[in-house]
């Protein structure tokens, strides 16, 4: 422990060290109330993020009795979403307390797995993924309790009601025909078993239910939606847009899963008030967060039971009927093991944890995991290539007085321009850029301004309103050997085998990364940017938090895990609600597609239940 090694007491910091005793006591009480005899339930939903939240909402509002199992605690939204807190409100200026620390970029590649075992972290009580910060550290998991093995992977997990939707990036982009029919277009791998036309109505409904901000652009690479009031570009972004328009490229307002006009029939949410601090949890709940947008309204129907502290280790199989009979749960705190039963199991634990539960659900008919007759379970892991980024100062705003530039939920966006109508000689698929510019709260670029003294200080001010920076998201090809398996030895703190990663970016990704850096430099030059800086190194695998594909869907049970309604080929009453059935990842942030696909799957399940087929 840190204190023992130094004999120092950390400074009291009430803004950072939140008192969560009330919410943990409430979570404990709620967990104790719900036992396997508290049912019956029609459906068990595992996980409470975008997938589990949407599944619970769809089923409960249809009058179906749902048991939602969340591995972490309930959340105290008003206390934990510290949206507008200034850094100087905290003694540590938003650094973590001394006994906690996130993994640094380089450590992902240079520290052996499991990361938490390394002696350099021995003095820290909690070691988080890179996503751990002053606002998220009570939600993201401790790597010491949740190890991984195998190749480096920046796996970000949150165990709390709402999961990662409490701090997600709000990018709400649709997959289009270029993703669903990618194989037809370039000959690599297989198409999805469904097309954009199958999912488009569900994207529309998600837009209407949750609110999505954006502009109509008519681009096939990222289809339009049912948009609320869009965000605006600021001055440096307008300069950049005009410069790259001459190259035939677009720079459009970001599409945000945030209600800018308000949503109907949800008393927990208000419209966006342009504060620009959504990633800490939006305490107006204008940003989509699963608890207020989906779970509380679902609970208000009276058909949803939530059991926190419920770690699901496996899906239970009734070998006589070849149907799942429920799930095995270990209580996070008491470690009591309980079997909860229902007619249907919906897994929405996140792509990789859903896969882990299935791999761990071993039985004599399915000795390598439930749903794994095809041997596709755990394979075809994909996410987005990140790290290629660039910045420069846009002359129209150098030396000007700062304006409000960051009061919006997401920055603008350069949609994919490679392999849309043309064919790039070096690589298939494509990438997009997200970013933005103008005056932000913290001038991170100041460390690149040379010197010291009055000249340094006034140069920081001079360039402060003029910064523009962008980062790329590239499609990672789904390949069979990029996979996860269960580690035969290592278990997590609750005795569940952990995932062993065997995942590396390949040649297509390397060539794509080179082109990303070149095209970004080309665009910044076209905009006349000064002091252009391009980062050409990719970030560690997993950084995008957009993992997809480890239980891919398909029409052929020999090569895929689920059918086109995300139902296991092996067992007809297990459905996957997260991104695990996605065949490929495109370049788009995954959350909006998870919500739309889950709604579609739940519509199918509702009909199965109504017709008495499950």
């Amino acid at each position: 422990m840190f204190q023992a090694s130094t004999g120092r007491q950390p400074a009291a910091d009430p803004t950072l060290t939140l008192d969560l005793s009330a919410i943990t006591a409430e979570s404990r009480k709620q967990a104790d109330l719900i036992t396997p005899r508290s049912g019956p339930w029609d459906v068990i939903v595992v996980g409470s993020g975008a997938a589990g939240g949407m599944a619970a909402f769809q089923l409960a509002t249809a009058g179906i009795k749902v048991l939602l199992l969340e591995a972490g605690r309930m959340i105290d939204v008003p206390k934990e979403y510290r949206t507008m807190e200034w850094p100087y409100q905290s003694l540590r200026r938003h650094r973590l307390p001394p006994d906690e620390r996130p993994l640094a970029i380089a450590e992902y590649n240079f520290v052996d797995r499991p990361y938490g075992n390394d002696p350099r972290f021995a003095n820290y009580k909690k070691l988080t993924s890179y996503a751990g910060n002053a606002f998220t550290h009570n939600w993201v998991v401790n790597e010491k309790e949740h190890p991984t093995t195998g190749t480096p992977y920046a796996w970000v997990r949150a165990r709390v009601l709402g999961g990662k939707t409490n701090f997600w990036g709000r990018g709400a982009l649709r997959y289009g025909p270029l993703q669903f029919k990618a194989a037809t277009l370039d000959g690599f791998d297989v198409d999805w078993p469904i097309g954009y036309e199958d999912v488009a109505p569900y994207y529309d409904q998600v837009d209407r239910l949750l609110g999505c901000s954006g502009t109509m652009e008519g681009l096939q690479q990222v289809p339009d939606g049912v948009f609320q009031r869009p965000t605006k570009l600021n001055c440096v972004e307008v300069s950049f847009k005009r410069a790259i328009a001459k190259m035939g490229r677009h720079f459009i307002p970001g599409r945000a899963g945030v209600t800018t006009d308000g949503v109907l029939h949800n008393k927990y949410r208000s419209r966006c008030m342009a504060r620009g601090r959504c990633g800490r949890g939006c305490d107006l709940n204008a940003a989509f967060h699963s608890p207020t947008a989906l779970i509380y309204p679902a609970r208000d129907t009276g058909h949803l039971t939530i059991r926190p502290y419920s770690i699901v280790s496996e899906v239970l199989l009734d070998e006589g009927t070849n149907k799942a009979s429920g799930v095995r749960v270990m209580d996070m705190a008491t470690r009591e093991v309980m079997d909860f039963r229902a007619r249907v199991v919906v897994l929405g634990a996140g792509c990789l944890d859903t896969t882990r539960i299935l791999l761990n659900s071993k039985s004599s008919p399915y000795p390598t995991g439930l749903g794994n007759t095809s041997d596709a379970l755990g394979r075809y892991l994909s996410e987005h290539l990140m790290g290629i980024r660039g910045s420069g100062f846009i002359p129209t705003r150098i030396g000007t007085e700062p304006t409000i530039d960051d009061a919006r939920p997401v920055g603008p966006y350069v949609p994919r321009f490679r392999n849309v109508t043309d064919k790039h000689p070096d690589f298939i698929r494509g990438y997009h850029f997200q970013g933005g510019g103008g005056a932000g709260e913290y001038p991170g670029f100041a460390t690149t301004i040379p010197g010291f003294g009055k000249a340094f200080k006034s140069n920081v001010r001079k360039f402060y309103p003029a910064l523009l920076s962008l980062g790329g998201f590239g499609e990672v090809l789904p390949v069979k050997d990029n996979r996860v398996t269960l580690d035969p030895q290592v278990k997590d703190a609750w005795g569940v085998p952990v995932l062993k990663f065997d995942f590396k970016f390949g040649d297509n990704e390397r060539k794509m990364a080179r082109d990303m850096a070149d095209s970004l430099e080309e665009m910044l030059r076209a905009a006349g940017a000064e002091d252009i800086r391009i980062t050409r190194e990719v970030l560690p695998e997993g950084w995008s938090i957009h993992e997809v594909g480890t239980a891919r869907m398909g029409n052929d049970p020999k090569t895929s895990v689920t059918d086109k309604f995300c139902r296991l080929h092996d067992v007809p009453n297990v459905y996957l609600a997260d991104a695990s059935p996605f065949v490929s990842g495109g370049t788009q942030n995954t959350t909006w597609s998870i919500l739309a696909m889950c709604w579609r799957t739940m519509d199918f399940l509702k009909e199965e239940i109504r017709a008495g087929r499950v």
Partner: protein
Amino acid sequence: MKKPVSRRVALKSLGASVGAAALLPWLSEEGVQAFVSIQQTAATPQPRVLSASQYAALDSLVEAIIPADERSPGAREARVSDYIDLLLDEGDEALRQQWLDGLAAMDAEAVARFGMPVAKLPAERLDQLLTDASRNEQQPQTALERFFVLTKQATIAGYYTSEIGIHKDLRYKGNQVLAVFHGCLTEDGQDCPHCGQKPVPSSDRKL
């Protein structure tokens, strides 16, 4: 001090319902007080790690890196040395030693060249010292050069997360409750006074 938006003010500006009130931020008065006490300009420093002379040396260095000017106070008034002291208090032994050695090396250099420690140097002497120490900022070679980079980075972090740095120096205007975010006024079809750009003629714009 610029006050954070209180529940009452936020409620009023939102015209929010009672239902929404339960979801507004929890603002701890104690939390506000805790940082006020350390940042009040007049408060006597009570460093946890640094001695009085080390604190004085550091205070001279950070103020030389980000000094007061016609626009805003500098790192001294923003209490950057208190911030660094807390950083050292909560860091590990290696970090503390790195800083204490660095301060000692700076003082030794000041005494060798000018016959007095850093805290006593007149401005032009301190400027000379830092000019030399910052010569290889991109690739620092000597202990002094490395310590300059370390101190500069911590000064940037401490100053631009302070109230003085954010509000008085940078004049950052965000993190407020706004009805609408405007952006560049050309986006609304007007001439933009902030960047001087003109709107695209409406005949060229998409519907």
